[in-house]
């Protein structure tokens, strides 16, 4: 039998006003296991806490119930007090007499019996409480950033500046990401490369940052503070130590392939760096198109390379490393708009996506910075921009707004006018959305100073006619049908999640939403956390966003990571689930409902007859378990049970509450 003490707080008149203290105390005396009762005006005061502490010591109490305000208010206060008196803090339960009783019931007639019921339930529960200890976890003081775009670079720089080593794993041969593909950024029209490349270089040169480019995360095991990560370093076939980045190899290479960086609008060599400011300035050989790998001869790069850095024998390598925290910043893709047959994307060289059009402005881009039609090389006179291609389209595309298109379209229209003063832009839109510092002003400028015609309405069809593309649409404000003889059409294709985001999510143990963007832990209050402790997200892999938002979120993620890395030890959740292995049948339904991948299958050996049997049971990793109890609810045999909210405890509360009407 436990030795329980019950302490009732008057909370001034907050409780005593509608709960008869004497009657309640007298009733509490008769609860099973109760050996001591007391009351005080303010239990949370130092005096009040001392009363509890002294009673624990004097009466040898091993369980405590306090009838006070909500446990969400002072549970920690009282548990700390109990701990100071030598009691395990989890042997104390709070009955919520103030918020759930005295404050909401009119008089003592109502309040007193309910207070007694709530205390009885708490006493019944506490009798089954066990001493618990929150698991203590060591922290590996190194962070991993997945993705080397502006989000990843910013997060890595912030973590590195805080004094922790950080690795950036980038899939492409160079860091830089989408931002490196942009000519200018809105709403300031500063050159994207001019603000990005210094950060790329800073990241490369930072003593705390280690770039692992042309590499992908293969596997993540472990948990917060101790993630064991396998990274596949793809073979570059170039020794990065010897290579000086002189460029002779890609100058001389005779084989070509479409350039990913140029959105396929230009060719690159088979040995290449994706763009002129690449970091690291070390080329890779694309095995698929390289003559040597395909046909066994050529080897020009090897012959021409001054420092003899070419190494055809290089193999993919697996790097294994432990990290305390992970920031996922894998960015976004642009939707392929060819599913919209009416826009004719893919069927005519002068119908481009926003990102493709962006490349035409760039001096090192496919047209050397001349904005010309890809069909005949002539500068366009009329360019039509179509918004929401795949965005805000429940039927064929994505439900959401891609957020950046209104702004980059205004930017491109302005840039166009600056390059070609004779050119005229038309924008078909559903709504123009320009929330953001300086955004509305910027878009107004496009409309008012740069002669951009905004037409509210949709385009039904685009078809070639002679040299032109006829854009057939409706201006829904005037109700008129509009036919524009355009020279070029630019589609604001939706920003979408990376196709392999769900797969990566599964590897690292975070989930994706219905659009395959990574889920934040809470839409308002935990925007950079994920449901897996120690893994944070930044940038457009969470949802489409612009550069300022991306950078802000990256810094936020970095702070979260640094906060974690700066801890000597992590305190885990005490009320975790535990498995009764003898009873567990190993059906692993608990694994399916656990939001934290905290449960795994485990093989155990059991004696059977003269020998042993191997069988599967569930195993909880207390470091990952957050104590939601989903597993305990789905387990048919109650073989997995949550400490602190166990089946026994909840049933005892039900029984106790029902004893008194």
């Amino acid at each position, binding site marked *: 039998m436990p030795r329980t003490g019950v302490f009732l707080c008057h909370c001034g008149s907050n409780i005593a006003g509608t709960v008869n203290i004497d009657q309640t105390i007298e009733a509490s005396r008769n609860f099973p296991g109760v050996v001591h009762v007391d009351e005080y005006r303010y239990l949370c005061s130092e005096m009040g806490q001392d009363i509890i502490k002294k009673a624990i010591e004097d009466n040898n109490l091993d369980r405590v119930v306090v009838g006070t305000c909500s446990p969400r208010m002072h549970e920690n206060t009282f548990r700390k007090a109990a701990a100071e008196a030598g009691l395990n803090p989890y042997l104390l339960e709070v009955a919520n007499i103030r918020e759930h009783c005295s404050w909401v019931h009119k008089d003592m007639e109502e309040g007193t019996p309910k207070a007694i019921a709530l205390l009885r339930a708490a006493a019944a529960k506490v009798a089954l409480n066990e001493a618990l200890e929150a698991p203590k976890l060591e922290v590996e003081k190194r962070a991993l950033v997945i993705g080397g775009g502006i989000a990843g670079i910013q997060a890595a720089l912030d973590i590195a500046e805080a004094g922790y080593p950080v690795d950036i794993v980038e899939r492409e041969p160079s860091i830089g990401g989408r931002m490196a593909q942009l000519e200018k950024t809105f709403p300031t029209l500063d050159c994207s490369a001019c603000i990005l490349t210094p950060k790329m270089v800073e990241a490369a040169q930072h003593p705390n940052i280690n770039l692992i480019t042309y590499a992908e995360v293969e596997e993540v095991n472990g948990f917060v503070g101790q993630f064991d990560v396998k990274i596949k370093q793809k073979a570059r076939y170039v020794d990065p130590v010897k290579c000086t980045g002189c460029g002779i190899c890609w100058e001389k290479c005779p084989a070509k392939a479409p350039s990913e960086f140029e959105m396929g609008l230009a060719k690159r060599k088979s040995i290449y760096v994706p763009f002129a400011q690449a970091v690291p300035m070390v080329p890779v050989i694309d095995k698929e198109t390289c003559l040597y790998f395909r046909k066994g001869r050529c080897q020009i790069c090897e012959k021409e390379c001054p420092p003899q850095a070419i190494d055809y024998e290089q193999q993919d390598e697996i790097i294994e490393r432990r990290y305390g925290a992970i920031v996922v910043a894998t960015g976004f893709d642009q939707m392929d708009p060819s599913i919209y047959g009416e826009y004719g994307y893919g069927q005519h060289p002068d119908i481009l996506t926003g990102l493709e059009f962006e490349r035409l402005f760039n001096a090192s881009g496919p047209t050397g910075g001349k904005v010309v039609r890809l069909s005949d090389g002539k500068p366009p006179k009329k360019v039509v921009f179509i918004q929401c291609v795949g965005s805000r389209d429940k039927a064929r595309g994505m439900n959401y707004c891609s957020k950046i298109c209104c702004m980059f379209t205004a930017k491109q229209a302005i840039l166009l006018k600056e390059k070609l003063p004779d050119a005229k832009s038309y924008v078909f839109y559903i709504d123009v959305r320009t929330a953001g510092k300086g955004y509305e002003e910027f878009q107004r400028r496009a409309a008012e100073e740069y002669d951009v015609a905004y037409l509210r309405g949709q385009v039904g069809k685009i078809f070639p006619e002679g040299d032109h593309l006829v854009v057939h649409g409706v201006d829904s404000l005037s109700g008129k049908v509009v036919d524009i003889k355009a020279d070029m059409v630019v589609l604001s294709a939706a920003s979408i999640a990376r196709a392999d985001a769900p797969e990566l999510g599964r590897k690292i143990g975070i989930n994706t939403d219905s659009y395959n963007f990574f889920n934040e832990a809470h839409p308002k209050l935990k925007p950079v956390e994920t449901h897996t402790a120690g893994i944070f997200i930044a940038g457009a892999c969470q949802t489409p966003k612009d550069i300022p938002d991306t950078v802000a979120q990256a810094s936020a993620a970095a702070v979260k990571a640094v906060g974690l890395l700066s801890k000597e030890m992590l305190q885990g959740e005490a009320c975790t689930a535990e498995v009764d292995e003898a009873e567990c049948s190993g*059906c692993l339904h608990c694994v399916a409902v656990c939001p934290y991948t905290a449960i795994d299958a485990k093989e155990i050996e059991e004696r059977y007859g003269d020998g042993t049997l191997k069988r599967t049971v569930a195993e909880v990793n207390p470091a990952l378990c957050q104590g939601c109890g989903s597993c305990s609810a789905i387990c048919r045999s109650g073989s997995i049970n949550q400490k602190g909210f166990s089946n*026994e405890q909840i*049933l005892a509360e039900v029984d106790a509450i029902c004893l008194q009407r």
Partner: protein
Amino acid sequence: MAENNVENLKKIREAVSQDLLGGRIDLLLGWEKGHYWWQSRPLFARTEEDLEKLTWDSFCAINLSRYLLDELKDFQKVGVLVKGCDARAFNRLLQDNMVVRDRVTLYGLPCPGMLDYDRLAEVAEAAPEGIIEQNGKVTIKTADGEKSADRDDLLADKCRDCIYPDPVVYDQLLLSPVGKKEAPEKFTAIEKLEEMSAEERYSYWEKELSRCLRCYACRQACPFCSCRECFVEQQNPRWQGRAYQASENFMFHLVRAYHGAGRCIDCGECERACPVDIPLQELNRKLTKDINQLYGDYEAGLDAELEPPLLTYRPDDPAAFSEK
């Protein structure tokens, strides 16, 4: 079945004896004749001699897959004869991690449906002494003479509503497929009950459940009941009271059925095993019906790879609460 019984049995025996004698399996789970001609009970065959007792007739209703739970402890490789329902039961066990696929050889037996003694007696209006089957007709012999009836009218309850008589999973299919049967109106009884008032329904169940002996035969026969210790036997916490009263009868039967929510393969073994004829399937099917209606069609046991509906969710799921 009886018409080519001899031939079919020969085919089955050949296939399994090859594997048993060749060491590909250490044990064969099949059926043998029981004490009465209208009962076939599980056969645990380890030798050629054992195999001689093997039978395949119109009374092999017992679902053999569940016996794997025990037999896989003693034998490395077990062969099982599986009808449609046994095969779905196997998938259930596979999904619950109760069996190891590559230690089991499944011999598929497309099943024409099993006959029920009570139904034979009902139709014959006398104690049946034997049957002869021919061309979909069954001649029932009694002390008073003979009576003929359509085979379909003599089927056991669990077979009447069966739409998957062919095994959905097997390693070898030993007989020719029967083909998918038409979807019967298996929810008719449920719908009738749904139309009653709450009071009437409670009275109905109170009466039906009052017969319960709490022998737990339903559980023992059930492929979704695979817990090592059932909640009814647990002491701590004591979920289930021991008293024979409505309160505890409801507790057991509602929880038993709920534990099969989204998992019940509708094999009807619970009801067949019940010595007091409680319509247990109605509880199981109510859950199946509602879960399918709310969360999309799902048939447990058809595909072990498909996630059971209560182990997953969609953010826009509907709910059955008065506030949506």
